[in-house]
């Protein structure tokens, strides 16, 4: 066996501790040495309090106990995201973690629904989705393992306190031998021969060297950008929001098993209910609203009493040209930024880490071995694909709107979107067909939720769906509807379930944490 791989993680926070915890857990102790450098002076951004169901696979892979994690992070369950006012003020739809009905004779369910709708024989589409119906009624239960049960038609994610999550992962990682140093990096030393990062120097003069550096230093990209000048592809022309104001508030009303994203005059506002408080934020474009105004709008639109002053963040939508450059892999905001509209921040961290773990080889730790450009290029292509697919999906939310007389929305409604998205939308409008792909985020139900939820209505459906008698279609729809309603009727209230499953151990001190 070769020498242990020395991994230096630059920056704590969600990305840094997810990376450290995963590497520590997946690679055997004798094969790696992991060192996290974080500065208590700098503090963390604490990206993303709302997650996607994929995080459960991550937890499973690295051996995290879900109930313990939830209890320690004030977590609640998440069945989807409610979008309010996106196509028109007053609209509401939920993007669910689950399907609408199931295929009939190989044809996606929504085609039959469209057909029945045209005959006046269909309920609203969301009533055929178990996670939506449950979310609307604030109910929750774990999905069933039996694939024939309607209770198996959904997944779930978590809403949690990001700083508690980072703290939890830190404990997890440290108990598996990860070293942590509190220190500020003042210099980065590159190797003369190949420009690889050799070591980082801390304020106290000490040097930390490594084979592989994981840059989790946030937007500024201490290693990937400041030292290696990797470059950044900006997507502001499609995703113009570049600021966020965030503030926690007291809980009011029942704990919703979903996140809410409400369209606002110059962006959108998030609402993420946790056991002890609610996270809120206003993501906006600085071209269309000032920080002060955004902050005060946010404060005026909270459910409960604000627990702090708003904190402000700046960002630029886009992706680092190479996520992996030489011996540096950028994870989290150092790798790219896509606004948290679809809770993809933690997903993108997760995918960078797990893909890295998949691609790490047992080759010698040389440039030609562990940092083989063939591996690095393939890794970068993969991450690019992930970002690009999320990007198109986010753009759809801004573009498919009828909002007008607001400069941001007028711009987005009329902008040129990427050809890939244009094609997807045309095909859907023309015949209700969703363009699908093998890898990457957002499957058919996600696209359906946003298309239908934002009034992208198809003018026709798959002709194969005409193969059944309308009475038969009607009966099948009715059966799904009944199964969903009766299953949800048997589910406990979200709060009740939480109380039994993962009550937070102590009423956590309220923190001013950004999402």
């Amino acid at each position, binding site marked *: 066996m070769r020498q242990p791989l020395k991994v230096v993680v630059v920056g704590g926070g969600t990305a840094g501790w997810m990376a450290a915890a995963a590497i520590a857990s997946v690679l055997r102790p004798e094969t790696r040495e992991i060192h996290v450098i974080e500065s208590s002076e700098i503090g963390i951004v604490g990206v993303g309090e709302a997650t996607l169901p994929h995080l459960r696979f991550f937890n499973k892979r690295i051996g995290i106990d879900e109930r313990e994690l939830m209890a320690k992070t004030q977590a609640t369950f998440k069945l989807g995201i409610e979008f309010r006012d996106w196509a028109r003020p007053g609209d509401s739809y939920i993007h669910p973690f689950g399907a609408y009905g199931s295929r009939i004779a190989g044809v996606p369910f929504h085609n039959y629904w469209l057909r029945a709708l045209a005959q006046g024989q269909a309920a609203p589409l969301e009533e055929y989705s178990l996670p939506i119906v449950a979310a609307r009624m604030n109910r929750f239960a774990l999905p069933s393992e039996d694939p024939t049960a309607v209770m198996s038609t959904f997944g779930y994610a978590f809403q949690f306190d990001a700083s508690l999550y980072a703290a939890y992962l830190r404990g997890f990682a440290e108990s598996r031998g990860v070293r942590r140093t509190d220190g500020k990096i003042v210099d980065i030393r590159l190797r003369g021969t190949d420009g690889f990062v050799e070591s980082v120097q801390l304020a106290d003069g000490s040097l930390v060297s490594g084979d592989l550096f994981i840059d989790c230093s946030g937007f500024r990209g201490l290693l990937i950008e400041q030292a290696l000048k990797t470059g950044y592809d900006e997507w502001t022309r499609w995703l113009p929001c570049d600021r966020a104001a965030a503030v926690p508030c007291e809980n009011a009303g029942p704990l919703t098993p979903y996140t809410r994203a409400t369209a606002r005059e110059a962006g959108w506002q998030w609402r993420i209910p946790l056991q002890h408080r609610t996270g809120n934020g206003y993501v906006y474009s600085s071209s269309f609203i000032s920080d002060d105004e955004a902050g005060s709008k946010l404060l005026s639109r909270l459910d409960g009493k604000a627990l702090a002053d708003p904190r402000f963040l700046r960002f630029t939508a886009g992706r680092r040209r190479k996520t992996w450059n030489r011996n540096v892999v950028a994870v989290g905001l150092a790798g790219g930024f896509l606004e948290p509209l679809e809770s993809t921040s933690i997903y993108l961290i997760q995918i960078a880490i797990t893909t890295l773990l998949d691609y790490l*080889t047992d080759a010698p730790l040389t440039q030609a*071995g562990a940092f083989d450009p063939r591996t690095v290029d393939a890794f970068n292509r993969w991450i690019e694909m992930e970002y690009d697919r999320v990007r198109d999906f986010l753009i759809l939310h801004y573009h498919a709107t009828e909002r007008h007389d607001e400069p941001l929305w007028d711009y987005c409604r009329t902008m040129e979107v990427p050809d890939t998205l244009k094609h997807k939308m045309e095909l859907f409008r023309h015949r209700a067909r969703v363009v699908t792909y*093998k890898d990457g985020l957002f499957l058919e139900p996600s696209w359906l939720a946003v298309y239908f939820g934002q009034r992208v209505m198809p003018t026709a459906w798959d*002709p194969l769906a005409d193969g059944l008698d309308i009475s038969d279609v009607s009966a099948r729809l009715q059966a799904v509807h009944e199964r969903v309603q009766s299953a949800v009727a048997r589910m406990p209230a979200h709060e009740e379930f939480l109380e039994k499953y993962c009550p937070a151990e102590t009423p956590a001190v309220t923190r001013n944490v950004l999402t």
Partner: protein
Amino acid sequence: MNSAVRNVAIVGGGPVAWIAAAALKRAFRHRELEVVVVDCGNSHDAPVGRWTLPSQRGMHALIGIKEVDFLRRTGATFKLATEHHGWHGAGSRFMHPHGDIGWKLGATPFYKYLLIQQLGGHDENPEDYSLAAIAARLGRFARPMGEDNELTSSFTYAFHLDEAAYTAYLQEHAMALGVRRVPGSLADVALSPIGNVTAVNLVGGEQIGGDLFLDCSGSDAVLMGRVSRGARDDWSATLPCDRMWSVRAGAVDNPPAMTLTTATTAGWLWRSPLADSTMVGHVFSSAHMSEDEAFAQLQQTASDLAGKSLLNRFMSGRRRLFWERNCVALGTAAVELEPLAGADLHLAQLGIGTLIELFPIAAESSIEASEYNRVMGEQADAVRDFTLAHYRVGSVPVGEFWSALRSTPLPQRLAEKFELYCANARIGLLDFEPFEEVDWAWLLLGAEVLPDAVELQVRTQLEAVTPEQLAPVRTHLERLAASMPRHIDYVRGQGPQKSHAAKS
């Protein structure tokens, strides 16, 4: 206003035309779709012997063909594998079975274990962990059985076909479904002012109208050629074979359920067993071997060649757009490729399936065509890559043909696939690829191409697994295969017969 498609006219007389006709007729029986095949006879653009991929079974199920009946009436046999001889130098051989290598070790495919063993200098053979490979080698056959995760279900199968018998069978089946057949050959086509086909005119004056037209006429693409000039992606620089001889030979006693190929100095010979005869052929590059010489080499492989031989000329490549206006090219009218991967019918069927899924809402719409071309373009390139990969991995036979082949640049997507594998043993698949990870593993392991390194996680996970631990599995598979019926007995005994595969 746009009008719905009511009539489909298909030009061509081979299996692709009839499969397309039957599949469309069945899929759209609710709207009483009229399907007519303008049968221009066998254009002889295709091999007289064919071998398929396992997807043929799915297509049969879809159009309502009963397997037992089909086998009895067409003289087809089963196919568990292809065995390739001489591709990596004299005396070399490897198999590409239709099935798994071993089983999943946790979440890790079994072939990674083999790679680790081989990298460590141990001689572990993937064929020892494949029931399909062992059965094929022993001349045995039984259908897969048992639950999904059992070794007895770790494989699937395809068919060897007699083209003429299969075509006749498909034609009868399609006509029973209500497909109309009009024999004749194409004189010209009538176009609307915007360039859509409105009708095909046959020699003799008959006119066949339609809303949608399929060109299954073979490499001449007699219909498509009149609709557009049709830009083409030429693959002949990397795939120089451009001729194929095929001819019938006598039956062998209990042929194994596999296709054989043998590398020659300018291409490869093939042998595809049928119930009562054997089809043989030679695919070669005319730049490197004369037609006569190629035929002479074919003659040496069998003493009992019978009947007319057929020479088929082609040039590897594809139409850039398979669907233009209201006309869709399928089969060799769309993609011309040597049958090394046995995927010609598979690709045509993917086209038919995609066409059914994207069946135009209105005859005039073009958005479906653009999606169809995107998806099928990827699929066609993937089949090309897999075919080409046979020539580009491992060591190579001696000769100008083989060395010239290796000097041409690889398509980017295939180069990336090889690079990733060589760097870290990963096999990466794009969105639309008809061949799976295990197919690539068979090919790469068969060529003895070892990666420079394997994934650290996989190394850690599989380090402790030894060939000794797995010995009982190898023995079990041997016994299981040996207990299956002889292939030819299984073919002859087709009927509702109980499988002889032993219970584990």
